């Protein structure tokens, strides 16, 4: 496997928060094809970490390199192109554009990338088919269930064949069954070679689906565990370690 994400001594301080940095000396590497879950309690810095890897924010110090590109040095337009071409983003609340149909929502990133309408449409239809919501293509998001909306959001995230799929609490707004379906989908994608970075506060979810769990506490990596398929109770292991790290 080759390295896709390399974070070196990353520190992120928000305005007026110098005494409590959101991230404080984080070093993390993610290889291509990994399924990594980042977990931690509220305020641990996991969303900040995700934002930095997504190119939505810049580190105060340290380096965030994705696919050989130093995101801290990239300009706004370059970051936008990076997000468009290299990253797929799945949000907790789906964030589909309510004025567009499901199909149009999925087409948007492809069109932003300059693909023709027909090409974008073809790719979007293919993804909707694959994710089992082709029959919802011409409906507006508000008419869909939460699970269907999240599938549409995943289709949108995949439309430009990103190197890295970022999922921020993708099941947070879903019922258990829909949540499981979405997570199964992410696992399937990962099996197909897609690198997935999942952010969650749910230890069970992290250990059940991810193959590596990174725990953050107070802006530092408290633990970084690669889970073996044979581990009997991985969730418990991780939880204990996090609790130990917390102190």
């Amino acid at each position, binding site marked *: 496997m080759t390295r896709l994400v390399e974070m070196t001594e990353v520190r992120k301080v928000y305005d007026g928060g110098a005494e409590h940095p959101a991230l404080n000396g984080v070093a993390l590497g993610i290889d291509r094809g990994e399924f990594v879950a980042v977990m931690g309690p509220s305020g641990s810095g996991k*969303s900040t970490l995700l*934002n930095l890897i*997504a190119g*939505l*924010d810049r580190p105060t110090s340290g380096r965030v390199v994705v696919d050989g590109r130093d995101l801290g040095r990239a300009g*706004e*337009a370059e970051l*936008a*192109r*990076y*997000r*468009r*071409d290299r990253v797929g*983003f799945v*949000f907790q*609340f789906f*964030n589909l*554009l*309510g*004025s*567009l149909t499901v199909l*149009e929502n999925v*087409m*948007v*990133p492809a*069109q*932003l*990338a300059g693909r023709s*309408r027909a090409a974008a449409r073809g790719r979007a239809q293919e993804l909707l088919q694959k994710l089992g919501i082709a029959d919802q293509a011409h409906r*507006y*998001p*508000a008419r869909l269930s939460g699970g269907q909306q999240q599938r549409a959001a995943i289709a*949108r995230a995949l439309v*430009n064949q990103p190197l890295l799929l970022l999922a921020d609490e993708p099941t947070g707004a879903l019922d258990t069954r829909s949540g499981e379906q979405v997570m199964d989908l992410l696992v399937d994608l990962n099996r197909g070679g897609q690198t997935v970075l999942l952010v969650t506060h749910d230890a069970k979810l992290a250990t059940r689906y991810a193959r590596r769990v990174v725990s953050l506490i107070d802006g530092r990596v408290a633990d970084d565990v690669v889970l073996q398929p044979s581990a009997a109770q991985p969730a418990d292991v991780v939880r204990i370690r996090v609790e130990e790290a917390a102190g």
Partner: protein
Amino acid sequence: MSALLTKVFGDLRRRRLQGVVIAFVILLASGTTTLGLTLLQTSSDPWDRAFEVQKGAHLQVYFDRHKVAPEQLATTPGLLAASAAAGPWPAAGVGYELGTHKYRLLTVGRNSPQAGVEVLRLASGRWVQRAGEVVIARSFADFNHVRLGDRFTSLGTLDKPSLVVVGEAVDIDEGAAELSTQFAWVTESQMPLLVPDWGYKMAYRFTRAPNDSELRDKVARLEAALPPGAVQFSLNYLLLKRVFNITNQIVLTFLLAFGVFALLACAATVANLVIGIVIASYREIGILKAIGFTPLQVVGTLVGQMLLPTLAGCILGIPAGIALSIPLVDRAAASLGLPSEPPFAPAMAGLTLLIVTAVVLVAAVVPGFRAGRLTAVGAISLGSAPTSSRRTPAAGWLRRLPLPRPLALGAGDAFARPLRAALTAVAVLVGVATLVFATGLHSSMQHFVDATFGSRTSDVSVQRANAYPDRKVMATLESQPETALIVAAAGGAMTIPSVADPVNVVAYRGDSARLGVPVIRGRWFSGQGEVVAPRATLEEAHLQVGDHFQGLIGGQPIQLRVVGEIFAVNNLGHEVDMDLSTLAQAAPDSVPTYYFVRLKPGSDADAYARRVLATEPDFLDASASQPPSISAIGVLNSVMLVLAAVLALIAVAGVFNTLLLNTRERARDTAVLKALGMTPAQVLAMVATSAVVLGTAGGLLGLPVGVAIHRALMQALASIAGNNMPEGALRVFNAPGLALLALAGVAVALLGALLPARWAARTRVAEVLHSE
């Protein structure tokens, strides 16, 4: 401080930018309204003041001295029940020469500037004391740069006496020097030395200011009591006042019209803003209600947020409007030699404040009630529901346009809220309509001037002094090889039943149809007994094209038939044009004194005029025809330019406001799009496209509205001058020009989009999405 005020001030602090936008548009609108209303109140002030101070004449009548004796004239004040009268003074039109210029001045013999009626006020120098001296009207002196001590040569008699200018007087009869007859005064004994023939002028004043019909009755009484033809001409104070105020009246018409448009645009902007605040504040409105605010208090918080910036705008706008009116009011006062008075009209300032506040109140209260009616729970749940983009048919259609995705999204966003889009389009519409009008005005005024002064479209105009015979002029002109057409014209006056004063008669000799006087309807006269006249004459005489009527020329009745309505602003449309043979039926001795010459193509008009003048420099005046530069038109164009700028700025503010609301409401969507890879440039393009769509809609609607306003106001302008506007002056727009003006709407919208688009492009994705 009450809870309501605390909330209002808090909201204003939070929405400083929107408060500034409201204050700005109110400043512009209240300034325009104040300017219009101040002018409305003060425009007639200078003339009224001067009329009282100088005991102005309600009625001036010019008599033929061969038909009526001074003793008879002395009885006329009693006949008319005048409270005061002055005259008879000898009076005649006299040609003068000063350097290379020739002037024709209505010269009156008066031994004193004081009189029971028509006191003349000396602006400089002194009054005439002996023969060889002349006092001239101040506006004439200013316009022609004549100074005290200059020497005029009178061209009325062969011995050409010389007159030295000893004074400048202000007369309330004088209009703008470039437009109206101007006056000169000499001693009574000087008159017979200046012209072989002259008439008498009487000035009457009445206890109560008479109206039009009373003035008509008085002239009719004089005509009935004196021998036929004794009354040559009369002038009443109502006409003089109208002529004096014509510039301000025209400016006023436009100002009031565009003041209303500015208020409309303001109302649209305020309503838009309040609707936006209500939509953005559902949750807060619910909380207000939950903690005990009554529906009226909720409305009050919204209205208060609008009223405070409105008052701030008025505090700046009303004094600005008054300051802008000073040059216009001063211009009127100065032309009467009056000291300038600050045109502060408290009633008008108060009225402006009232009107502007009322417009804002209505614009704010109507959408405010929507918030007031919501239940606490309803408002909170509306506010707590996830915001979703709106789907309207127009927006959906626009989003599916085969455009790059950011542009299609932006186009759809423009109509995501149809009411907001419509109100914004109205603001752009008003701005574009004003630009269309201001552009059209310039061309139309050129037509107006050409039709007014170049109507007898000649290359050279020649005027002879009475002492030089008509046949010699004709011989001179006919002998010039470049001459293509000569049309001569004689002047006169005709009394028409139910028209207050005798109207001007212009009687042509030659192929006058070729002069191209604009014919509004009917046709140009083609034979004896046929006449054409402008609207004022026809209306006051209750005549239609095709009607027969009897006029009196020099006391002689004459049967005439109206065959056409023409455009002629002389004497505010009180004119009748006919063939010289028609005039000769009543006045056989009428001889032309004006000559309009059309030259063969390629001829040098200046050289021609110089050559004709050289044949008899003392008694001929010849010049290449040139429309004069009219200061009133300059004033009008400047005022319209300011108005267009004001309304364009209001439109910019309206678009700015709308896009600000749109981008704030759509911050989440913008953040999502940026997260999906939309570049800052694409965000800019998306917001700019919204503006372009709104600007295009407003621009396209603004074109027909602007053209219609142009037509209506130009007609109003022509009406003030007693005419209908010739069609040529109304058809001044062409397709490429209109397309450019529609683009002005887009430019206005893009200007308004500049900041919101930049702000949207800088949306911090992580912050926006995190705050969801």
